[in-house]
């Protein structure tokens, strides 16, 4: 099936296939270029045009409804190429041009000229006539006038060898993905396949091969059937031709679904953003947990990062949406497919938007994590020391003051000496006896003599209980005796008697701090509980 258009040639209307029309136009244009600069040139071309109209008319009279490219090709052969019409065979003297480089020229210059000569006047297309997968390498080979076999071998080796080569670069560049570079090369191929358009028309085939777009060359392409045809497939592709066509259908369907999802996401996000920034205090749950990012708060602190995040997010959604819409429309023939420049531009823009979005998102989440940690610290710390909720509750309820708390695995424990497992008591543990711990409690009292009673135990020597009245009174905790099977193992009653208090308070506590107790701690653990202060008498009356 071909697209058919109507043209007006010398006042007559003709139905003509689109490709035939293109060829005809090329032909007339080349005639014009050939004769244009001589006297009466325009007239000659007009006469030939009239002749073509006549021949078309003949065709119509013979029952041809639409002029095909074959007809135009016949007519061109009949009327002749511009060179034939000029009758002068201008011999190219290109033979004299040197392939040898002067000894003064550097190899680099030679190489550059070589490249320029090879790519001169060419455009990069995928080659539909010689392809394994999508014709990318074959197109590159045509562009560089090189043998496609070497490109294929090279690329295959690159994919295989990249695992061994790229870890070196990976370390150097600090790339995290080097394990997947062979995958990356495969993906790269498909990126190229998307970015580089396929040579669809005979004209593009010529541009790909770097030939002049002349009627004769166009006709050659058509006649030699180099013209891209849909039934040609790469030798790999031909195995899967049916599957591929199914996949194309599925792909288009999926693209439509993805596009729809993207559109819904985009709308939801836009609405959410509007909500977040206009009524931040509503505190309702928004889609994608956007509310959890607290954008409005961050906006006031680091506006640029939030703006980068939003722009990146919107672009990252809009670009694929646009691409999908464009693809669907171009499949439906409503719009022209994108050119290579446009595709590359969009891909670059999209990657840029991702590069904008993800660092910003990571940063924002980092902020949130920081905030969360802050919250956790508050929840699970007592006087600046991280501990379990139970430890914290116990210390707070007991009004204990943490003076030192280093290298402690826990601060309280259950398993009371009377067998009550719900009761907790002060208990510190470090398997290397490195715990440095001191808690203290202050009680307001009247002046007098006091006695402190408590129940304690320790795995080794060092830890002390103490009371501070007028002076510091220390009492070492006795090392426990392992009495297997007895619930109150190792507990001792300890008292500090005759604490003289002339002030209005007394402090007492538990310590394993060598600086305080004056003796090194050699206990893996120690415990204390049931501190009790008893007034035993008045202060001795002082003589005035």
């Amino acid at each position, binding site marked *: 099936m071909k697209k058919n258009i109507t043209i007006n040639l*010398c006042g*007559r209307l003709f139905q003509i296939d689109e490709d035939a029309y293109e060829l005809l136009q090329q032909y007339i244009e080349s005639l014009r270029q050939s004769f244009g600069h001589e006297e*009466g040139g325009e007239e*000659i071309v007009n006469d*030939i045009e009239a002749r073509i109209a*006549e021949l078309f008319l003949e065709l119509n009279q013979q029952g041809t409804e639409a002029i095909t490219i074959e007809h135009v090709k016949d007519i061109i052969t009949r*009327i002749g*190429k511009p060179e*034939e019409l000029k009758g002068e065979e201008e011999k190219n003297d290109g033979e004299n041009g040197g392939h040898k480089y002067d000894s003064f020229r550097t190899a680099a210059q030679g190489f550059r000229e070589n490249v320029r000569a090879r790519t001169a006047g060419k455009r990069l297309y995928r080659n539909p006539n010689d392809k394994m997968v999508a014709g990318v390498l074959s197109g590159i080979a045509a562009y560089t006038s090189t043998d496609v076999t070497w490109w294929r071998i090279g690329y295959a080796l690159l994919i295989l060898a990249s695992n061994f080569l790229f870890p070196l670069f990976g370390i150097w560049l600090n790339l995290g993905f080097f394990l997947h570079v062979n995958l990356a090369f495969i993906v790269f191929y498909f990126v190229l396949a998307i970015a580089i358009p396929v040579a669809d028309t005979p004209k593009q085939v010529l541009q790909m091969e770097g030939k002049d777009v002349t009627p004769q060359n166009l006709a050659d392409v058509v006649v030699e059937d180099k013209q891209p045809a849909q039934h040609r497939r790469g030798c790999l592709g031909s195995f899967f031709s049916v599957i591929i066509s199914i996949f194309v259908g599925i792909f288009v369907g999926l693209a439509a679904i993805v596009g729809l999802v993207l559109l819904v996401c985009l709308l939801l996000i836009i609405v959410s953003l509007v909500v977040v920034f206009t009524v931040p205090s509503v505190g309702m749950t928004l889609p994608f947990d956007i509310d959890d990012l607290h954008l409005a708060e961050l906006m006031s602190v680091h506006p640029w990062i939030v703006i980068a995040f939003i722009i990146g997010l919107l672009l990252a959604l809009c670009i694929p949406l646009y691409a999908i819409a464009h693809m669907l429309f171009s499949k439906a023939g409503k719009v022209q497919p994108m050119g290579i420049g446009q595709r590359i531009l969009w891909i670059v823009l999209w990657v840029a938007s991702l590069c904008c979005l993800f660092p910003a998102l990571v940063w924002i989440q980092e902020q949130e994590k920081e905030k969360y940690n802050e919250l956790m610290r508050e929840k699970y710390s007592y006087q600046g020391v991280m501990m379990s909720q139970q430890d914290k509750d116990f210390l707070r309820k007991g009004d204990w003051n943490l003076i030192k708390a280093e290298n402690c695995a826990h601060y309280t424990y259950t398993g009371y000496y009377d067998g009550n497992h719900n009761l907790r008591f002060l208990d510190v543990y470090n398997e290397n006896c490195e715990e440095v711990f001191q808690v203290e409690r202050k009680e307001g009292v009247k002046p007098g003599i006091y006695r402190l009673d408590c129940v304690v135990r320790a795995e080794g020597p060092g830890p002390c209980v103490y009371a501070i009245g007028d002076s510091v009174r220390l009492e070492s905790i006795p090392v426990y005796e392992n009495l297997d099977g007895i619930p109150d193992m190792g507990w001792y009653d300890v008292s500090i008697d005759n604490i003289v208090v002339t002030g209005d308070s007394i402090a007492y506590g538990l310590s394993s701090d060598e600086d305080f107790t004056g003796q090194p701690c050699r206990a893996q653990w120690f415990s204390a509980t049931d501190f009790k202060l008893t007034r035993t008498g008045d202060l001795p009356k002082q003589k005035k």
Partner: protein
Amino acid sequence: MNIENAKSQMRKGMLEYCVLLLLKHRPSYASDIIQQLKNAELLVVEGTLYPLLTRLKNDGLLQYEWQESTQGPPRKYYALSPEGEQFLEGLDAAWNELSNTINYLKTITPQLLEVKK
């Protein structure tokens, strides 16, 4: 030098003369001339004729007038101008000479050459 090239050179030289001959008796338009030349197996590509006609016209040897056609675009009918007729006479004479020369050279045999000596 290949034969095709030589033939095309000869044709090119003769084409002008042939066209003038065709137009001697009645005015014709380009497609007519092409048909005639094709019948005479002289023309390879049709397009050659158009630059030639234009050149002859510009040299004043031909003149043309437009005529409506029943089945196509209006046609240019070419005819010899008085100068063209004169020119053709000149060419006729030249051709006769040339023809004689060729005929003579073609019929000549080694024996004749011997006699002349």
